[in-house]
């Protein structure tokens, strides 16, 4: 795989940058071989347990957009992000970048793609190496991906990204612990931008930060998108951020996609009962908002997935069909996609 194969295509149509098809990921949680042996009905049997983190997700990420994935803890949104980045191998399904399949490549073959795809993590306290200075942290990826650059070129590049994220380039000799949370997240962003990527996966990049700092970092991400023509896959649980930032939104529940729609459409008219409940639960500043939709019970464990629609146990509209048949994504009149039997049958 050469670098030239994945450089610019000239296409007027909205171009699909990343394509996720039939993605499944299960994690084995049954321990080693001896732990798996159980004594049942007079026999020794081997039993394995799996966490079904992603169950058949299809997503297309268009060039230039910010696709937000939302959902509650345990819905598989971070697993999707990590699988796209190749940090986790999928159990089934494929991931393509500009039409080239990347999920089955080895580390060496992945290298040119790693330059194009970068990741920003949630916790800036854990994602920066405490024993490296900021300059070292930022220089490392630049040097790795541009082995023929001179030391001066590398330094210039690092200065440029530090400047663009609002970190004084003269602070390069400091260590990560000398910075506040917001500044550290800026450094993480600088590290991602240092290799001039075109696609950035951001996994809850602002949820560890204070409100006033969140706004600074969100602005920074939006500026970077504009200036560098970036595409984002943005993982978050905060719907207010999504409404502001996202081009399209994918709502996940227990490893499945329940709704995918342009941001405006989704917020104007959420179709899936889970999306409706999620949106009504955001604490708003206005005092005259409608009361929130209460869901029965809590999110079931992804170890024993419910049959049929994964949401049927908590859904106020569930019927027999929902308990048995897994709903498929259907396109709605508004241009979104929703996986719900109720919407399909016209009862919701």
């Amino acid at each position, binding site marked *: 795989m050469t670098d030239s194969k994945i450089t610019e295509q000239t296409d007027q149509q909205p171009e699909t940058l990343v394509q996720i098809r039939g993605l499944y990921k299960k994690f084995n949680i049954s321990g080693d071989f001896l732990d798996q042996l159980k004594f049942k009905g007079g026999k020794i049997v081997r039993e394995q347990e799996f966490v079904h983190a992603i169950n058949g997700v299809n997503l297309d990420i268009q060039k230039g957009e910010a696709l937000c994935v939302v959902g*509650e*803890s345990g819905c598989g949104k971070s697993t999707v992000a990590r699988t796209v980045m190749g940090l986790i191998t999928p159990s089934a399904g494929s991931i393509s970048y500009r039409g080239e399949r990347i999920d089955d490549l080895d580390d060496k073959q992945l290298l040119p793609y790693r330059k194009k795809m970068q990741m920003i993590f949630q916790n800036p306290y854990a994602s920066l190496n405490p024993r490296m200075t900021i300059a070292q942290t930022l220089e490392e990826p630049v040097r790795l991906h541009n082995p023929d650059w001179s030391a001066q070129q590398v330094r210039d590049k690092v200065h440029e990204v530090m400047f663009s994220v609002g970190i004084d380039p003269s602070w390069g000799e400091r260590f990560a612990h000398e910075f*506040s949370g*917001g*500044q550290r997240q800026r450094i993480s962003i600088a590290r991602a931008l240092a290799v001039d990527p075109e696609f950035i996966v951001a996994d809850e990049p602002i949820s560890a930060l*204070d*409100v*006033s*700092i*969140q*706004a*600074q970092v*969100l*602005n920074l991400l*939006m*500026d970077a998108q504009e200036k560098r023509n970036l595409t984002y896959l943005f993982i978050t*649980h*905060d*719907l*207010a*951020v999504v*409404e*502001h*930032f996202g081009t399209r939104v994918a709502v996940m529940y227990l490893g499945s996609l329940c709704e995918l729609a342009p*941001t*405006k459409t989704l917020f104007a008219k959420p179709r899936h009962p889970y999306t409706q*409940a*999620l949106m*009504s*639960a*955001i*604490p*708003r*500043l*206005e*005092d005259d908002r409608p009361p*929130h939709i*209460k*869901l029965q019970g*809590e*999110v079931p464990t992804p170890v024993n997935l419910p049959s049929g629609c994964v949401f049927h146990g908590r859904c106020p509209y569930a019927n027999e069909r929902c308990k048995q048949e897994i709903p498929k994504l259907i396109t709605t009149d508004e241009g979104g996609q929703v996986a719900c039997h109720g919407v399909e049958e016209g009862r919701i």
Partner: protein
Amino acid sequence: MPLLEVKNLEVSFGLRSGEVKALRNINFTLDRGERLGLVGESGAGKSVLGFSILNLISKPGRISGGEILFEGKNLADMSPEELRDVRGNRISMIFQDPMMTLNPVLTIGQQMIECLQAHRKISKENARTIAIQKLQQVQIPSPETRIDQYPYELSGGMRQRVVIAIGLLMDPDIIIADEPTTALDVTIQAEIMELMVELCERNNVALILITHDLGVVSQVTQKAIVMYAGRIIEQGPTREIINDAQHPYTQGLMNALPQMAIPGQRLNQIRGAMPSLQKIPTGCAFNPRCDYVRDACTQQLPGYTASGNCQVACHMVAELKQAEQASEGA
């Protein structure tokens, strides 16, 4: 007489580099059944304030000045025995992370019964009945079986319900809740907040809610206090503060929320970050980040100005009010 009155409270931490004032000049009152929100970013001192009300500040920190009057008695100079009678009994506390607050090696029931027996002369059987009742109040399904389970067997939302049930055990007058829903998902958060409001109203319990989430404050509380760098910068009725914030920091905090901006546009950010308590700027602590900064702001600590029903610590607001009064007088 208000149920709780905090007067000129000051909390200091003696560090090697010198004494740091974590709270300065804190004044507020709380009536029976009232719900008060303490808002601010990390480091503003809101948790320290919550802890100091129960005199829970541990060394090297201490209450270095002022009074905390609970029904007229000063909690700041009570003996440990007297304090034990107030803590958990008359004023109880709910913490952020329910997994850290519950003892992992005791069942829910053991922890609840222990608390009841520490404060009242009561048999184990009666204590158990009360415990089950309280679990029912916080809407835990089948409390008779849940009570014999260990914390790890419950989900995050359930655990926080148990912690709330323990907070309510002694029918306290005040509950101090320190970020009670921050560790939870939004749908669970909405349920827990609704439950807390309902329980406080039904039992006429006052609530001090410590949070960084202005949305939650807006939905839950009647009165709000905004803190910055160890000081109250604005306090008053919640609706007035949300709809018409006076202090530039409160305004900035509100405008920084994504829901206040036009989608796709830049958010109105406050530049810079909260100063460390060791390096609080002279004058108004917010002055390096403020757009309306004037000479007085960098020299003199602003006093409180009444604006509507709110108290605001800001030179600009004070000047505006003076000008208003002058024009009315003329």
